[in-house]
């Protein structure tokens, strides 16, 4: 019995810590955003939704923390110790795409690419430079060129983790036949193309 009280006591303490951390880090909910959320989902205005959202769900979460406090504590400590993990995971997902040899289309010179990718806007709303707003990215790409480097255009059909197919096109640096750093000029879901 004492063990049970000890366990629940530790759970209650964890709940206080987690709740305190949440209150310290949570942003205050703006009234305008509440209005928007209610406009998106009119259900939010109903009393039943409010009771579920504001009372039942937090109460259940609290009970769960008291019972399974080591898990809650582990998650919280992990958040404090390594707050960037979530961003890193997201970045890793973004970076899975890479150009391979089968995607290569045509070998081109810097000048040829810059002629192709000149951006001219009648309202002068983009730099009148190769790749326009992405000019700096292009400069960074070609800064790393060596005498052994080649520039190729590429086109790839990429299947995302969630099943969508994307068309990705651009230019890639190839060294010893191996594609490396690249710049994309087209990145679009094929389902959206008519």
């Amino acid at each position, binding site marked *: 019995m004492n063990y049970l009280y000890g366990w629940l006591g530790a759970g209650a303490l964890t709940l206080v810590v987690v709740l305190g951390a949440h209150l310290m880090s949570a942003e205050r909910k703006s009234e305008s955003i509440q209005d*928007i*959320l209610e406009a998106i*989902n009119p259900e939010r205005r109903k009393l039943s939704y409010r009771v579920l959202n504001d009372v039942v769900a937090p109460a259940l979460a609290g009970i769960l923390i008291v019972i399974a406090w080591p898990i809650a504590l582990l998650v919280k400590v992990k958040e404090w110790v390594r707050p960037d993990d979530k961003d890193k995971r997201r970045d890793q997902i973004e970076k899975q795409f890479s150009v391979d040899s089968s995607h290569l289309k045509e070998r081109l010179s810097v000048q040829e690419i810059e002629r192709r990718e000149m951006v001219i806007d009648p309202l002068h709303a983009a730099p009148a430079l190769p790749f326009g707003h992405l000019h700096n990215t292009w400069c960074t790409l070609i800064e790393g060129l060596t005498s052994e480097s080649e520039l190729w255009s590429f086109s790839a059909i990429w299947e995302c983790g969630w099943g969508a197919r994307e068309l990705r096109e651009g230019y890639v640096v190839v060294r010893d036949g191996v594609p490396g750093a690249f710049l994309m000029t087209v990145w679009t879901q094929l389902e959206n193309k008519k």
Partner: protein
Amino acid sequence: MTAQIAERLLYEGSEHAMCTNPLDDYFAMAGHRPPFGSPSTALWRGYVGRWEIVNDRLYLVGLSGTLEDGSEVTQASIFPDFPERAFAHWYTGSVRVPQGKQLKYVHMGYGSTFERDLLLTIDRGVVVSTEIQNNGEADDSQGQEGYGVGAMLIYPTKGRSTHRAQKDTDEGLL
């Protein structure tokens, strides 16, 4: 994931909700994304952009958002030389503008369906075709018209981390 606040689109003299985020493509192509704060589960991307179609070209004409450290982000922060109008030449794909009454609410992203979708097909920032897609008729004649959400909003967020924008050159994506 909550339904998301839409971008805004000025098109043919009126303002619409736009359920497409062309600026996300820009950040991905440029290889760095400012560390936007998410003030709400309804705005995970952390910003709201205002767009305009002029002479069949897509332009960014306003941006409002905040970084994780609470500092404000405007269009000038992203495009310092083009603080009022930036041609979205990087964007290829479809722009979706929901119209009519809501048929079905989906508690995720831009998943809700409406009676019609105006679809603008964009090729490197230039509108190449437009199409109205009919999705059905709402039973509720009193229902709300259009997406009905979103505005140029700024939500201050408490500082949680410092600005971490960086180029991902080491991973190949420039």
